[in-house]
């Protein structure tokens, strides 16, 4: 493997699709989105605080951050799921040029969810209704968006699609989830999520809780579906930044409701300019000869609660290289070395002390 390997993933990249030239029209545009929720005690938590990005046709954007960083809330926001106690504060989300933030929940359900933006959930094994056959749940999904669909056309569609994703359609569609092995269930979930050819697929930690070999298989399947153009663009959410190396073309690292670094995969993974993203990389452990004595980076503590404004850098509290003025000066996203970074010392040697000394 050469150092300058192409960004496109895995070994089979050669046989895979050539990355489509990104069209200028973005399928998902998020503009200064702010989302908050209200706790039982009435505290307002600004879980997503001014996030902007755009996802182009054919692109995979990875969003990385630990639990509590706001990535799950960001996903809800992108899908227009503003169900109390979650509220839209300000900003806009446009899918295919159309804003979804002003919609009623019913309108959102009918026109957006599953249709334009679809989720591949974390726990695929428990995501299917245990007392419904695969075909019935899939049909429910189609009928919920298109009441006029008749039984025959639905059946044909399901068989065609399930065959295409490599399943024995007749057998699988007529089975209950409990009768299928885990891998098949995983495929079914991905198949159902993408039934209506959504513009954007959100994969929310689809591989966590799986062992490495199964992880690899799931990611391979996602690429297969991209090759077949069943999936066109994807948001891949994970807490394992290194994993994105093989998945996405660009990466946003999220911390305390904000993007702290947003650039191409190469930039963020190999030349991170922000202490947090560098720490996420440095915390990785792998079985490489001679690396046994390398100390992984450990960041203790947890992300801040966000129930009150934090003066200065939000990561300063845990930052291994925090400087005295970090806690007082508010940080903004700025361009350093070709990517967006939120760190006052992004362009200095200070950040290189994190995860450095390899």
């Amino acid at each position, binding site marked *: 493997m050469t150092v300058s390997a192409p960004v496109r993933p895995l070994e089979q990249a050669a046989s895979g699709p050539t990355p489509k030239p990104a069209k200028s029209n973005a399928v998902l545009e998020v503009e200064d989105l702010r989302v908050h929720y209200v706790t039982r005690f009435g505290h307002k938590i600004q879980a997503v605080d001014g996030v902007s990005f755009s996802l182009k046709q054919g692109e995979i954007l990875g969003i990385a951050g630990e639990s509590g960083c706001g990535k799950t809330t960001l996903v809800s926001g992108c899908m227009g799921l503003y169900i109390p106690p979650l509220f839209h504060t300000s900003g806009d989300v446009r899918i295919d040029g159309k804003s979804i933030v002003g919609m009623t929940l019913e309108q959102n359900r009918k026109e957006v969810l*599953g249709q334009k933006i679809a989720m591949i959930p974390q726990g695929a094994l428990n995501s299917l209704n245990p007392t419904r056959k695969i075909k019935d749940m899939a049909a429910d999904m189609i009928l*919920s*968006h298109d009441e006029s669909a008749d039984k025959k056309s639905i059946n044909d569609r399901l068989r065609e699609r399930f065959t295409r994703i490599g399943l024995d359609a007749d057998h699988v569609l007529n089975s209950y989830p409990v009768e299928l092995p885990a891998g098949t269930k995983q495929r079914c979930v991905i198949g159902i999520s993408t039934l209506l050819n959504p513009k954007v697929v959100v994969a929310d930690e689809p591989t966590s809780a799986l062992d490495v070999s199964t992880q690899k298989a799931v990611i391979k399947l996602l690429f297969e579906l991209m090759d077949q153009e069943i999936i066109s663009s994807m948001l891949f959410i994970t807490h394992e930044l290194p994993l994105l190396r093989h998945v996405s073309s660009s990466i946003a690292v999220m911390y305390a409701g904000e993007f702290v670094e947003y650039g191409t995969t190469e930039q963020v993974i190999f030349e991170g300019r922000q202490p947090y993203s560098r720490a996420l990389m440095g915390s990785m452990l792998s079985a490489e000869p001679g690396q046994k004595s390398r100390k992984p980076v450990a960041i203790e503590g947890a992300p801040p609660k966000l129930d009150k404004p934090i003066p200065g850098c939000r990561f300063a509290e845990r930052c291994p290289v925090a400087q005295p003025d970090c806690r007082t000066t508010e940080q903004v996203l700025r361009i350093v070395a070709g990517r967006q970074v939120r760190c006052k010392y992004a362009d200095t040697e200070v950040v290189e002390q994190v995860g450095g000394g390899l």
Partner: protein
Amino acid sequence: MLRKNPTLRHILGRAAWYFVTFLVAVTVNFFLPRLGDANPIDAILAKTNAGDSAGAREKEEAYLRQFGLAEVDAQGKVIRTADGKPVRTGLGKQFVSYLGLTLQGDLGTSFLQFPKPVSEIIKDALPWTLCLQLPTIIFGWLVGNLLGALAAYKRGVFDRIIYPLALLVSAVPAFCVGILMVYYFGIKLEWFPAVGGYDAGTTPALSSDFLSSAAYYYVMPFLSIFMIVVGGQSIGMRSMVIYELGTDYVKYAKLLGIKENKILLYTFRNAMLPQLTGLALALGAMVGGALITEIIFSYPGLGMAILTAIQGNDYPVITGCTLLITVCVLVANFSVDILVGLLDPRIRAAQAAESN
């Protein structure tokens, strides 16, 4: 065929087990009341004794033959020992003849209400019990589940009223509710008759007089059971629906944009499965279940019949009633086994794996 059909194999396997259970129950049923010392014949004789010792002898002889309690010779005369005592038939022999008769559907003759057959006594009492229990359980189950599901789905004020009420009602013991009702509505307020199943002035028949009086007497026992069933069922259903609403598949269905109504159907259906088990078991236990209520309201059902029989050492009636209860419970359990397997693919898969 069995090899290919795990469901059928499971059903047959269960059926065999239930048959064994039935035989054990029948045996216990027979021996348990007979472990005591009491001699039922003495009790009957004491009640009917006219003082004439020859007549008493004759009567005793008749009873002993009738009940198969003593050995008889070729002429049908009871064999007696030197001091005149009848030679008792061994319990084993009694059991064999009991088993034979039972399997033919003959439950014997009552000691107390001689010569009324046990089946007759059951036939008189059973309709009362069924009329009291069947509607109560079914209505109570329906209403309870509906309220529970609503409370879980709507939450808010609705839940905050229903849930504590249900907890309260289901926590109060049945006899307590019954006694309080008898006291307040029966004796203090005199809204409803305190005891009995119908007006003493009427006789059980399909007359409007009798039916209206029976309906009037019906209200209090009905309500006392109904409230408890509703309370218990709604608590169970509420927590099941809350659990189902929080499952991964519901969250996923929402994210797929599946209609709210569909998702509610998913959750209700899945929450109902354990509740159905409860219903079937309640129906099985129904026959013997309202004993206390019947006793409190002196309702002429099976419960009262059992109580009278126990007080009078009326073995055949006790055995007959308990046998009926046993059979009902076994049938209910068996149907739950089959029903749940048919309705829930998860359980079907487990059953198939188990009988593999």
